[in-house]
């Protein structure tokens, strides 16, 4: 049995510490936003989880291309790991967005471009999971998964553009902002610190979870191999 790598233990600890610091920064360091109040705090985690979601989908598309070129099993395990993690994080991002939207936009749900795109993205990767479940041959499953991960990722910007051309009320917080968007605000220095620290924390969390999941995938493959050896 393969020992848990020492660096993974260190990363686990580091992630936990970063998380505690990040929570502290968000709740005690960053000032209360004047008009929105406490609910604005959700924004620090909402953006960070959404970021981790997109990061994972990007990773899946990239390792998908690697898998198709090299055909090595580890890329398939990595692709699945990234998408599994991102599906959950993206879902959390949508839920947190709803929690924030209820008092600010006065509704749980609105057909705003980002929300709608996020939902479609969730559906794309839910379809990815269904595709994998429908195929028994592991090589074919890996190939089709890789192709679909790339197709899905490429379609996301087009989906976003097309929905944005329909309408938008989502606030654009970083980058150029449409001042008319309801619930937009400008970040003060401590807010920025808390925000970017939270982004960093969640990125580390992603790497940590990804490492765990890939390791689990490899162990599962090994178990499968050993079981075949016994039954053969």
């Amino acid at each position, binding site marked *: 049995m393969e020992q848990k790598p020492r660096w993974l233990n260190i990363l686990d600890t580091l992630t936990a510490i970063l998380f505690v610091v990040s929570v502290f920064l968000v709740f005690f360091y960053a000032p209360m936003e004047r008009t929105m109040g406490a609910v604005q705090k959700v924004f620090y985690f909402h953006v960070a989880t959404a970021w981790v979601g997109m990061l994972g989908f990007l990773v899946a598309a990239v390792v998908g291309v690697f898998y198709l070129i090299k055909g090595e099993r580890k890329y398939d395990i990595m692709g699945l790991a990234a998408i599994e993690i991102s599906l959950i994080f993206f879902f959390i991002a949508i839920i947190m967005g709803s929690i924030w939207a209820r008092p600010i936009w006065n509704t749980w749900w609105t057909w705003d471009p980002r929300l709608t795109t996020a939902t479609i993205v969730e559906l794309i990767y839910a379809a990815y999971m269904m*595709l994998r479940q429908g195929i028994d041959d592991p090589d074919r499953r890996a190939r089709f998964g890789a192709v679909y991960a790339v197709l899905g990722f490429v379609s996301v910007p087009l989906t976003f553009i097309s929905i944005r051309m329909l309408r938008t009320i989502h606030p654009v917080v970083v980058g150029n902002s449409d001042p008319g968007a309801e619930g937009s605000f400008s970040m003060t220095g401590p807010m920025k610190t808390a925000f970017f620290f939270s982004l960093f924390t969640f990125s580390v969390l992603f790497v940590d979870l990804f490492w765990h999941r890939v390791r689990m995938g490899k162990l599962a493959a090994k178990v499968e191999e050993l079981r075949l050896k016994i039954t053969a």
Partner: protein
Amino acid sequence: MNNFRNFLRALTAVVRKDLTAEWRSRELFTAMLVFALLVILIFNFALELDARARTSVTSGVLWVTFAFAGTLGLNRSMATEKDRGCLDGLLLAPVDRSAIYFGKAIGNLVFMFVVELVVLPVYSVLYNINLFRPELLLIILLGSIGYVAVGTLLSTMAVQARTRDILLPILLFPLVVPVLIAAVRASGGILQDFAWEEIQAWVNLLVVYDVIFIAIAFMFFDYVVEE
């Protein structure tokens, strides 16, 4: 040059084969058409398509109809390749795999376009709207190309899965959202007599989608059929 001739020869062979077989049985065409008409009928009751509602929802009804009928056609067209092992037969031939992809895609596009060309006059007569406008036909062609480009690739994957009958729409619909939105908006604009400048952006989006996904399907088709 010689390679390109071989490519075209194989491509036309696949298209002719599909059209001949379909001309013989008309199974696919009939199924798609009857299904399309049923969808319109259901919309008629569900949305109460009176004169006022019609102008605003017609393009939506049309595209939902095309999309549903389209999956039916895509699934069937690939299932015939899988049934008697014909997909292996195609792959055994010394031709470029992309010739097979484009052959199948063009065949699918023809089926879809023919169904659309029958649905349009029927809808025009039923609801007293003139749908035969060259701009609208252009939008329908552009939208169908994008839909079929992705659909042909995905149906090739779907037929090789255990859950093949239910898989295609689940894989396809979230990816063709941009096509459907753009096509619905552009068609709606044309029917409401908007100026061309107002729908130009949607047409551009359709063209961009078509180009990107034809290129991707072209690059990835090998991986979907080869073991």
